[in-house]
Structures are given as C-alpha cells and as structure tokens.
C-alpha cells in the first residue's frame, strides 16, 4: 500500500553496500571525453548534402 517502502528498502541496501565496500576510486581518463556517437541525422539528409561536402573538400584541401 505504501509505495515509498520499496525505495526506502533499496536505499538502505545501497547505503549498507557502500559502507561495506570502503572507498571508491574515481579516475578521470587521460584523453579528453570527446565524442557523441549518437549523431542525429537522417540518411536522406546525408545524401542531399553529399555532393556539396565533396565540393568543400576539393575547394579547401588544406584543412581536410
């Protein structure tokens, strides 16, 4: 009946686990966290822009 009880129970379990586990080491990675792999683009957009992208590469070769 009381919906809060399972959450409280989980909270107690976690707290207990943390207390028993000791210290947690958090190490930042050497490399910068760069990339978002979930680039939101539809294939039809890629196809539409494709020839323009190639033109750009050919026009500004020094940066590509």
């Amino acid at each position, binding site marked *: 009946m009381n919906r809060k009880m399972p959450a409280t129970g989980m909270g107690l379990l976690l707290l207990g686990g943390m207390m028993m586990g000791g210290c947690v080491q958090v190490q930042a990675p050497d490399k910068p966290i760069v990339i978002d792999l979930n680039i939101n683009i539809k294939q039809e957009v*890629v196809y539409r822009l*494709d020839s323009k992208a190639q033109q750009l590469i050919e026009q500004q070769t020094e940066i590509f």
Partner: protein
Amino acid sequence: MTGKRIMVAGIVAAGAAAILSVASLGAVERDPAYQAARTSGQIGEQIDGYLGFVGAPSASVKALVEDLNIKRKAAYTAQARANGATVEQFAFTTACRLIAQTAPGEKYQAPDGSWQTRGAAAPIRDSRCP
C-alpha cells in the same frame, strides 16, 4: 614535317600533363606537419567530421589539430547555412567522404568510436553514409 608533328605532339602532351598535375594538387596542399601527423597515425578522421588524437598528442600536434578543427567548423557552418542543414549534419556528411578518402595507414574512427587503421579495403563507415 614529321619533326613538326612530333613537336606539336610533345607540346600537347606536356600541356596535358601540366593540366592534370594542377588538377590533382587542388587549391593548396596540406601543411607538411599536418600530413606527417596523419601519415604517422597520431591523428585521425572522426565520424563527426573533425580531426581527433589517437593517444596523447604533442603540444604542436594538439595546436595544429585545434586550428584545423576551428577552420573546419567555420567551413561546415557556412555550408550548412547555404544548404539548409545543421552544422552537425554537414559535418557528418563530410566525415563520410573524409573517412572514405583516408589513405592506407591513416587512422579513422569506426561507427563504434574505436580508432581503425585504414587498409587497402574500404573503411568501416556509418550505414547512413552514401
């Protein structure tokens, strides 16, 4: 008369060679330091259209890449505006081409984010690439 024909043929051939060599050069060549970093595999083509570091870069390579990426972003922004797309969309589309055009031995990023070394075969690209 035969000599004159040979001369004309020679001039035409030389002209054709000159045109072909200029066409393959493009507007401006890559900076030698940039080319060296690509060839040695220190930097590679990311799937988002920018250059990335494979491992920890030297200060000069880091500066080089940051400069090039700023310029790429400016180019993508201008093209995106002109073509009714977002910068990210134009950059991604360009990356499809750039990865396809990596030379064997150069590094590129696979769709799962890992660095790959380009071989003779086609690179692994996002399924949305043409």
